[in-house]
């Protein structure tokens, strides 16, 4: 049912406005970044308009590979953890009497600036933070436990920050389901475990894919979280891009990393979404 692009009528006109918006503020900047990655570095910052592959050569370096892999792995762990936490939450919400109130509660954290919320984690998990004071007072530990400035803290705060993005798509895909199918499954011989794996999961596949994408993508690009709660060995690619842009003043290299990151993300999302759809259609 493909329509000719030019034959647009009625409400679809409003779609064109959005399309224009996307082109101007999303696609054009992406191409600007792509273009920058092939230009020459200006040591005062910015670029000179001469073609160069030096940006890419600068980042062919085992250090970047480590940071790159770390970014992917930590983002992947955060996404999976978020989904694991979000499924039971979304399930309870979808079949709750107070679903609208609960939905509101999921969104409430967004009313506070995210930096403030990350600082709050420092206050809670820091070496002198609430948890450590509590543990020391009760005598569980001699001196403070190092909860913060490591990869654990990065994952924890990433999950905390992006959990709502995982809950919402799962909520909407569970809410569409008829509650009786779970009872029918038990009636037909499923244990509770089988109800989860054979009925719930296959029916919310699309929601899981969306949740994964919604957590994975912002995690890959995160800058503030590892900057504030990460340690020496939890620098992520976002921090590296920031460093190249500011202190190192190597814009082509920053643009090159961004371009690679973008291509990987696009490929990953396409594979994931296409795979999800294909299985759904079986």
């Amino acid at each position, binding site marked *: 049912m493909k329509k000719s692009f030019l034959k647009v009528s009625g409400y679809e006109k409003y779609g064109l406005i959005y399309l224009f918006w996307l082109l101007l503020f999303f696609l054009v900047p992406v191409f600007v970044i792509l273009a920058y990655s092939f230009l020459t570095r200006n040591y005062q910052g910015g670029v000179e308009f001469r073609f160069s592959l030096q940006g890419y050569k600068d980042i062919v370096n085992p250090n970047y590979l480590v940071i790159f892999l770390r970014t992917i792995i930590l983002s992947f762990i955060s996404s999976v953890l978020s989904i694991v936490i979000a499924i039971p939450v979304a399930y309870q919400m979808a079949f709750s009497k107070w679903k609208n109130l609960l939905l509101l509660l999921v969104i409430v954290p967004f009313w506070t600036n995210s930096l403030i919320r990350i600082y709050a984690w420092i206050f809670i998990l820091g070496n002198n933070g609430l948890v450590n004071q509590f543990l020391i007072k009760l005598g569980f530990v001699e001196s403070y436990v190092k909860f913060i400035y490591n990869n654990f803290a990065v994952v924890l705060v990433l999950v905390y920050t992006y959990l709502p993005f995982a809950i919402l798509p799962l909520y909407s895909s569970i809410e569409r*389901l*008829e509650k*009786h*199918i779970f*009872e*029918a*499954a*038990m*009636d*037909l*011989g*499923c*244990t509770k475990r*089988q109800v989860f794996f*054979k*009925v719930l999961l*296959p*029916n919310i*596949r699309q929601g899981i894919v969306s949740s994964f994408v919604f957590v994975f993508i912002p995690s890959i690009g995160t800058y503030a979280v590892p900057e504030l709660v990460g340690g020496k060995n939890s620098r992520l690619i976002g921090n590296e891009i920031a460093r190249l842009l500011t202190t190192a003043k190597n814009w082509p290299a920053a643009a090159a990393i961004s371009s690679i990151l973008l291509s990987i993300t696009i490929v990953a999302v396409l594979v994931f979404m296409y795979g999800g759809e294909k299985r*759904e259609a079986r």
Partner: protein
Amino acid sequence: MPGSSVSIVEVDKYFGDFHVLKNINLEIKENEFFSLLGPSGCGKTTLLRIIAGLEDVDDGDVLLDDKSILNLPPNKRPVNTIFQNYALFPHLNVFENIAFPLRLKKFSESEIRTKVEWLLSLTRLEEHAKKKPAQLSGGQKQRVSLARALANEPKVLLLDEPVSALDAKLRQELLIELDNLHDKVGITFIYVTHDQAEAISVSDHVAVMNNGVVVQYGTPYEIYESPANTFVATFIGESNLMKGTVKQILSENYVLVEFPTLGEIVCFRDKPVDVNDNVLVTLRPEKIRIGHTKPQLLEDAVTNIVHGVVDETIYMGYQTKYFVRTDGGYILRTYKQHASYLLDERIIQWKDEVFLYWNPDDSYIVEVDKG
């Protein structure tokens, strides 16, 4: 597939403070088509869910073939349910929906194929095997859920208002299909409905429920002809309800009752009454004959005859409903089937003077208030 008997023993159930089921006792014989009939909120669905294991009891017991099943989880009970909204698995096609319980039991692929194909033909769904539930009509969905529930070879099939989401014509068809299916598979069916016509047309026995209590248990005939109380009399079928006072005991089964608006009527009683008791009498509209002339009776025949004027006629194609105002001012409802009009019979019209007459057996004393 032989079915099981089900016994409900002194079952009580609360939702918070709300007493949903009050000391329910029922015996459901093996292989019978049993109906739980009642208005919404009477507790019938809750009782069904208790048998299925989807709801706990607060007191009492549920026995299957004289063995308690209360401590079995729903997946261990030899009982399957047809849900009101079909509850098909949206991610599976018709074939896989029906195969679902068989795959859980790890049947071999060939066994599954044979069995599912048999069920597909039983429910006439062969050509829809590859479709997803979203592509099916309501009636087809219901048949899939039926086939899926039968795949496990349950001893008892529980049906929760299985046809109520369908339109009237389809409802009739599916009901007949259900009845045929019951004859074929021969297991116990427990059918929950709020529709009295459904319940009495297919059931072997019916339990009428109201406010968490079984108000009457019996065959459809017993429930229709001898309602236990006013609720049953008005909930099942139409009826003329009349209040009167007993004047005279005529014989073991007949009493003379005086009604302020109808005069003296001979009524049937199957319960003790005395002179001066106030009684409530039900008279089914279809039991009343209507005519322009007074009927010719044999010498010893006892018949109730009332004179009145047609107040309202409702033409319904296969019959006409007459609302007749008696001389005393009571409105009696009656039907006349359009079997065939005799050539010399004049059609009864609005404002005609008519005689209503009926057999004393049909004016049935429902409730007695000892005066």
